[in-house]
């Protein structure tokens, strides 16, 4: 052990590509699984949540308008950046979740690979969710999917990093932007992820990370009229019902909490939950022998 005194990191929120403290000036104590102090995390207010929605909304146009190929490269860049900071996340996940180093390594490696998995989906999800429809008439008819907009995400409470990545990446892969509420008792990996995203070509506002009390922040997100969808992964049954009722006010798309093995290969459901399908009709005319109608 060196005599040198280490420098602590001030953990901050990640909103609009910047790292603000909570506007409320509040923090809460984050401890490891044995109760030892790790850091003071921002205790976000409802106002912080509203600010994050504004930032997320601002980013929708650019991010959803980027080519799928571009989004794929940006997500892959996140994996590249995480790989370089693997040790840091292994340490944070081990402390946050009380895991052995080997188990924390498995979590972080799976999280890096998950970014790669979704990087590959950006330009393929439309190919399996859309297509032409053989309508009975002289029409070209094509359905394609597009992102729903701003998605509020309550990150899983137990899986502080792999679970977190597993809910953020699918939402943004398709072009949504997100406001994510980190695991309440283990928010530090999420706040550090903000630092990775900030250096990964992810445009500011595409991912916004809040820490604090889920039950305090989530209701304002669920009721927010400029939020299009909500992922309730990190809500318990009681809170989830309350939030789903609030979300009905502007008919948010709701992904209910379910038992998920975050280590297992994901399907496409976390992407399709936040997609809208648009169908376009166009007359085709005809080249009939007896003259034509075009």
């Amino acid at each position, binding site marked *: 052990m060196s005599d040198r005194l280490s420098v602590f990191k001030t953990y901050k929120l990640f909103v609009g590509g910047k790292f603000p403290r909570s506007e409320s000036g509040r923090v809460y104590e984050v401890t490891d699984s044995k109760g030892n102090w790790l850091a003071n995390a921002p205790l976000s207010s409802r106002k912080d949540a509203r600010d994050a929605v504004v930032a997320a909304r601002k980013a929708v146009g650019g991010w959803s308008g980027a080519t799928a190929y571009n989004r794929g*490269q940006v997500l892959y860049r996140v994996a590249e950046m995480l790989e370089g900071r693997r040790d840091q996340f292994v340490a944070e996940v081990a402390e946050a979740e009380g895991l052995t180093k080997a188990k924390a390594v498995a979590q972080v490696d799976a999280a890096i690979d998950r970014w*790669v*998995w979704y990087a*590959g*989906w950006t330009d*393929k999800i439309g190919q399996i969710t859309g297509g032409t429809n053989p309508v009975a008439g002289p029409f070209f008819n094509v359905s394609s999917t597009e992102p729903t907009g701003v998605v509020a995400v309550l990150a899983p409470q137990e899986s502080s990093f792999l679970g977190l990545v597993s809910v953020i990446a699918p939402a943004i892969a398709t072009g949504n932007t997100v406001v994510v509420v980190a695991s309440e008792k283990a928010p530090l990996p999420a706040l550090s992820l903000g630092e990775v995203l900030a250096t990964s070509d992810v445009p500011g506002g595409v991912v916004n990370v809040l820490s604090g009390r889920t039950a305090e922040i989530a209701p304002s997100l669920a009721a927010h009229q400029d939020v299009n969808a909500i992922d309730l992964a990190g809500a318990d049954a009681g809170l989830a019902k309350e939030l789903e009722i609030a979300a009905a006010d502007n008919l948010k798309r709701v992904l209910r909490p379910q038992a998920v093995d975050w280590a297992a290969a994901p399907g496409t459901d976390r992407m399709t939950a936040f997609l809208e399908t648009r169908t376009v009709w166009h007359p085709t005319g005809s*080249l009939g022998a007896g003259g034509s*109608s075009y």
Partner: protein
Amino acid sequence: MADMASPKAFAYAPAPESRAVVDIAPSYGLFIDGEFAEATGGKVFKTISPSTEEVLSEVAQGSAEDVDRAVKAARKAFEKWSALPGAERAKYLFRIARIIQERSRELAVLETLDNGKPIKETRDADLPLVAAHFFYYAGWADKLDHAGYGANPRPLGVAGQVIPWNFPLLMLAWKIAPALATGNTVVLKPAETTPLSALFFADICRQAGLPKGVVNIVTGDGTTGAALVAHEGVNKVAFTGSTAVGKAIARTVAGTDKKLTLELGGKGANIVFDDAPIDQAVEGIVNGIFFNQGQVCCAGSRLLVQESIQDELLDALKRRLSTLRLGDPLDKNTDIGAINSAEQLARITELADSGEAEGAERWAPACDLPENGFWFRPTLFTGVTQAHRIAREEIFGPVLSVLSFRTPGEAVAKANNSQYGLSAGIWTEKGSRMLAVASKLRAGVIWANTFNKFDPTSPFGGFKESGFGREGGRHGLEAYLDV
């Protein structure tokens, strides 16, 4: 630099891309089982720069024994490669995509030197598409269950792949990326006149840490390709090239279990209706037939123009052709580069001469051709009938045959009057007309109000004697899966 614009036009200063970015070795062996090795018997041939005829390097002439070694290496590697989790194969392919992006300027200059095409094309079209293709298929490697071919679709085994000289590295990407993503291993034979970028790709495989034997590159001529296609250890044959060779390959694999995909010739019709925006159509026509000196299988080599706008369109087209700049392919302002080989130049010359002999009217802008190298002026023929050889045969050069039509039905009939069915273009402001015509064209790729657009997500391939099978997109996976 030969300037075809009027002598009073603003003169361009030379703007050559630096050759210093690429280091070509004096000789290259075959890349088999992760190592470079001489060909059995040590035979070599020279590869030259078609714009100067300068010798760039010597490469090995692969023999049947070399092909056998390569196929065996690929077979040995197949067991482990195909058993890797898709996510791990994906990560290798992502690495390759990223390294190609990093080295893209080097590869663009190399490709321009070896092929003769303008640097603005290799830099802005070939190389970005190459990287994108690997990136796209990387993402499929762990998602094959979602591709619509049932659960856990299996690879075929060893793929023997033979590619042409017109887009050397891009055709390599179209072949290797889907093959590897689906779990196959490959033996690839690049074209005789453009072997270098494939050999540089071997070095990229080394940098990416790709397991030995997964990719093998065997250079050589047509006999090398024939040996590869005929090899008993090959499970899949993929060929891009001429229809004549494609037919020969189809005969070779007859009676075997080899899965075959062919991407062959074309005689694309570019149909311009009277309501088309003329200036955009002219750009599309120029791009359609003069991109890559017209050495493109999907080139819009037949212009079908509605009679009422023919004069206006041709005037505008000739004006535009007079501004094209032909010369040093490394110059960033060059539009028209060199023809790839003396042999190809002779073929173009012979077919163009037949056009005159058969009674069509030839026109080309005044322009000087460089003394060395292989060059052909951008040329168009009017008064072309459907019986003329220049309307029927693939010229694979910067030669446009102009025909006219009166009704959409006539346009469709003329467009489809071809042994080929690879591409077509439709220029009209009216969506319903575009869709009606498109639905009647027997062609695999149809561009509306654009031309020569490519994307890894979009399937490419032909109808009729332009071949079968698709490359690119979800459809492109099928060629390499046992489905």
